[in-house]
């Protein structure tokens, strides 16, 4: 595989980290084996709450994948040279996120052995068909782009001219993956929490906050050990992007809250009530949602104030806060909040089981290992080019 050997050289700390991730991934695989044997009944999902942690992780990670466009677009459309060394990291993060998405989709299936039925009996009327097409294409684009551009970087040459249109295509394509993922939900009649065109801009704004925030954190952490050669000014620019996206994300949520509570249409109000105040005594998500709101506001303040945005310690705190906040908002609230109350008005709580969380952790460990390897390869290329 492509420059893979560069991920195979590392010190004791590196291998301890990879070993720890492998252990978590193996534990997750074991837990998944038991789910495969007994069915999705091992999860906290139920008749009324039929999607949960897995689909939420998928939705969140499509956003992380799409967010690569936030470093690719300024560099390739605006010749913003500072992002030259960031684009490939963003694209590697995108590849990792798409692979994790695929894992979560298969894990969530009741009959994963039949997954190829979606190719055998393609259904263009289904948004899932288009999501699969969009994600598959995005994965292929980013594999091609990272391969070609990193090779050029290693050889100290300019990338071949033909890759530029491919990169330009990846820009609208990134927007498309998260648009179609929002369409999965926003096109369903009778699910009023999701049935809003606002879902698409909400998805994009939250993605462009959480994804680049993760990229900043990865750069800040990994450059302690590896020569990623990211200029502090580049990180500062990404921080500004995260600041604007966080502001848009919070603003969009408030728009939804206004429409629901000023119109007072019960169908729209009750999902928000369930999430932020609880309904019929079911309050499992309430502390989570308020934690998410508090973290988002804290991040917004830290990112809006120039001093705290520029200082690396406070920037890291802001990035971690917005990442966790959006993970809760999209990873718990969006899916469960859309399903509760049920079409028949039933209110239930969803608490993931330990096994479900172990499987989820396993996929995250796979993702962490992939990102580690990709960044290590990049650092390997960059350490040679003094």
């Amino acid at each position, binding site marked *: 595989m492509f420059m893979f050997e560069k991920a195979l050289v590392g010190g004791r700390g590196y291998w301890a980290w990879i070993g720890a991730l492998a252990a978590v991934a193996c534990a997750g695989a074991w837990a998944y084996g038991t789910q495969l044997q007994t069915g999705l009944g091992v999860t906290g999902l139920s008749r009324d709450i*039929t999607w949960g942690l897995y689909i939420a992780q998928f939705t969140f990670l499509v956003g992380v994948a799409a967010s690569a466009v936030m470093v690719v677009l300024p560099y390739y459309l605006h010749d913003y040279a500072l992002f030259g060394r960031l684009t490939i990291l963003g694209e590697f993060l995108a590849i990792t996120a798409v692979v994790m998405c695929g894992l979560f989709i298969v894990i969530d299936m009741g*009959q994963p052995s039949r997954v190829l039925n979606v190719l055998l009996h393609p259904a263009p009327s289904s948004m899932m068909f288009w999501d699969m097409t969009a994600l598959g294409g995005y994965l292929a684009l980013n594999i091609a782009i990272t391969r070609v551009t990193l090779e050029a970087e290693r050889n100290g040459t300019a990338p071949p001219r033909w890759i530029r249109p491919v990169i330009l295509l990846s820009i609208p394509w990134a927007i498309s993956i998260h648009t179609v993922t929002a369409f999965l939900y926003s096109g369903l009649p009778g699910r009023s929490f999701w049935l809003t065109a606002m879902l698409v801009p909400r998805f994009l704004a939250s993605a462009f906050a959480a994804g680049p925030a993760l990229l900043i954190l990865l750069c800040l952490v990994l450059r302690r050990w590896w020569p990623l050669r990211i200029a502090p000014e580049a990180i500062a620019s990404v921080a500004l992007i995260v600041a604007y996206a966080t502001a848009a994300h919070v603003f969009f949520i408030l728009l939804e809250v206004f429409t629901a509570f000023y119109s007072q249409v019960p169908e729209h109000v009750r999902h928000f009530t369930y999430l932020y105040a609880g309904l019929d005594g079911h309050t499992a998500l309430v502390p989570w949602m308020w934690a998410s709101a508090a973290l988002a506001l804290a991040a917004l303040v830290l990112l809006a104030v120039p001093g705290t945005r520029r200082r690396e310690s406070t920037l890291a705190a802001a990035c971690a806060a917005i990442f966790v906040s959006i993970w809760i908002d999209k990873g718990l609230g969006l899916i469960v909040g859309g399903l509760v109350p049920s079409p028949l008005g039933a209110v239930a709580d969803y608490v993931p089981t330990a096994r479900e969380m172990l499987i989820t952790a396993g996929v995250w460990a796979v993702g962490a290992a992939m990102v580690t390897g990709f960044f290590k390869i990049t650092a390997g290329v960059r350490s040679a080019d003094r």
Partner: protein
Amino acid sequence: MAGRAAVATAAGAALGCSAGLPRRHRLGIAIDLRRCIAAGGCRACIDACHRAHNVPDIGDARHEVKWIWKEPFERAFAAEDAETITGALRGQMVPVFCNHCDNPPCVRVCPARATWARDDGLVTIDAHRCIGCRYCVAACPYGSRSFNWIDPRPFVAEPMSRYPTRTRGVVEKCNLCEERLADGKLPACVEACPERAMVFGDLADAASEVRRVIDERYAIRRKPELGTRPQLFYVI
């Protein structure tokens, strides 16, 4: 004209929705709620259906599988307008099951074409093709679809050999007794009802009994505002 209609039908079929011509046959059921409610806690339709289709009795509400069951009128219908419900219906349990919508969102969303509407409007599932993604469950605005969270077979008391049992990880729902219709029989719930409260037939046929019942008395459907065009009519 004929050419345009054909294009519209083809486009409708491609989109998985009925943007094209109206169906020549449209199967549906009219339920006379007064008769049904008069029978009180009767479970004849539920028992007949669940026995005929090997529907498991899991007992645990979280993992429950059901094809037809009863809900309070307010939950099945006017949840936001309880004040206008007549005393005869308030708090009464009414049967609910798949509406075999003329414009079914569940069919539109299935990524494997594992569920579809037949030419006569009956919405069915191929349990062997279903990948268990539960997108149809999210798309159904009536909560009519059940997912097999665990192996259902140990919970089928007396398995009937005439209808297949299901495996874990697939979605199921009322199939309007397509296997019985093929034998020229009525749906099991219709046949089992001791009050003769259910009338089954072709709604596109102006001379059918089901059409006559709906034309003569006031009938309502669940969530008609969603544009799904349910084919279950509740005569009140």
